[in-house]
């Protein structure tokens, strides 16, 4: 699979990972989907720390699909870390979670989330959402410059 863009999925539930991967395939998106399963791994990946130091294998993503309930470091913690990192702070982050709590929604927007999407129960809707995200963040959207101050 040769992909121009990489998308980082931070999701601890392997079944959700599987469904999201399926949805990407069904949506016929050719971006590379990298998966990490906890908050610490997400930070290591984005910071280019071991075992993710090789940017050729683990390129910086075009955006992050971030679950909120994660082991070790929560999605909100990952997000707030990211927004403090000078080289990464402009990276678009789409929250993809099962929580519809207003508290959570407001909190992560305050932390600098770019979008907040509740995982739908219907797989076909998940496919629609993935297509829309792809259109929005990959096709139409001008990507920010990373790695500059």
């Amino acid at each position, binding site marked *: 699979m040769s992909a121009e863009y990489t998308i980082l999925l931070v999701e601890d*539930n392997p*079944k*959700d990972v599987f*469904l999201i991967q*399926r949805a990407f395939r069904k949506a016929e998106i050719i971006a590379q989907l990298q998966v990490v399963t906890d908050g610490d791994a997400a930070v290591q990946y984005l910071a280019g720390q071991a075992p993710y130091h090789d940017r050729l294998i683990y390129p910086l993503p075009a955006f992050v699909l971030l679950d909120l309930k994660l082991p070790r470091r929560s999605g909100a913690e990952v997000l707030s870390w990211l927004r403090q990192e000078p080289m990464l702070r402009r990276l678009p982050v789409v929250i993809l979670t*099962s*929580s*519809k709590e*207003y508290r959570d929604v407001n909190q992560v927007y305050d932390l600098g989330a770019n979008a907040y999407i509740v*995982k*739908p*129960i*219907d*797989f*076909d809707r*998940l496919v629609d959402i993935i297509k829309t995200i792809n259109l929005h963040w990959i096709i139409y959207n001008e990507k920010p410059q990373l790695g500059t101050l």
Partner: protein
Amino acid sequence: MANPLQVLVIDDNRSDRALVIRELRREFSHLTVQEIVDAKDFEQAIAKGNFDVVVTDYQLGWSDGLKILRTVKAHYPRCPVIMFTNTGTEEIAVEALKSGLDDYVLKQPNRYIRVPIAVRVALERLEMHQRAALLEIRLQGLLNQVKIGIFRSNSDGTLLEANPAFLDLLGIESPNQANELNLLDTLGYYKQLMEQSPPQQQEQEVQLQRRNGSLFWALLTTTLNTVEGVPVLDGLLEDITERKQAEIALQQLTATLEMRIRDRTAQLEATNQALEEFTYSVSHDLRAPLRIIYGFAQLLLEDLGESLNSEHLGFLQRIIANANRLDALISDLLTYSRLRQTDISLEPVSLSQVLENVLAQLEPDIQARQAQIYVEKPLPVVRANRFILIQVLINVLANAIKFVADKIQPHVRIWANQRGKYIRLWIQDNGIGIDVKQQQQIFNPFTRLHSEEEYSGTGIGLAIARKGIERLGGKIGVESQSGHGSRFWIELPTVMESL
């Protein structure tokens, strides 16, 4: 007079006696006279005592009027004695009056007539004394018997008199003790009344100390009076300790009860909240595995759908359909439990705008049932929370469209009217109606009146509606008859300005 008046006439002179008796008879029609002429007669008469009044001369051969007087008074202190004499001196008269003589008449020819008058006056005085004495005895008896303390004090606060009950109340033996120990602030009460305008009377509950130091509650009634030009304080003192204790006990009981109710309410609220939080987190956590079941069932259908036989296809579709139902149920449960947790703000909300939103959200159902919705505009503005009101109306309206007999086109009419400070919004349908007996239950969670085959649903919709309306400070209700449609109403506070 029923009984004849019995008179002792004591005189050595026979004609004097006759004259006296004649005069007496003229005055008293019923009369018995004993004439006493010697010591023996007198002793017998005294021993018998059968006389009401004594008329005696002073100078007697066998005694004298003073001795007679003293003897009679010694035996019969109340018996009137009249001295009728021409031999007495002023000294004798004074001496006799001191010894209790009732009258002194000089024995002169024109004075005989005065003897019966003196007798009558003496008898009347006796009767008056007796009556007064009786009255005093009765009054004294009453004063002694009443449980209410009665007292009188003068303008410098000194206690002048008091009844036994008063002494009992304060545990003292005489009014003087009360003065010495200053058990009652009579001077203070006197001054209080002096400052008042007439009637100078007041009633107060006071806590007093007995001589032994123990305290008691009393109802004190004080009045300012004047006795022979001297101001005095008259007072009544009633022991109300028991009443006071009962009052205090009642207050304590009430306080305890209120506290227990508060505690219990707090407990119930906490339990309720814990339950709802539990519901929320369970519903929330149920969603993730449900999503997986649903998703993988869909993948199976996608991958194998064409190769499955119709039976297996049916199984798979049932899994998906039920996962869908479960999702709706979880959704409703989350909405229901979130209604409690959300902090809500009330603001003017246009019913027209809210209804537009609701109808837009229900559009798929309206289309599916070809429902006709009539809204009588304009609709007023109410004080509510927009999001909660939308939740409420979606649930009420969804029912209006759903619970309609097969092959009947749903007709829903919506209008509003003012009821005092409230706006009532009516939603009338041509549906299957609700039996009167079941109208109370339908607002409780999980109340379903129909099978899933007849009308699908979670049984939480109207519970959400009621909870939402309650959080908005409004009311919800229904008027319906089985088979004749339903008329639901919600009532919310009105807002004066229109949006």
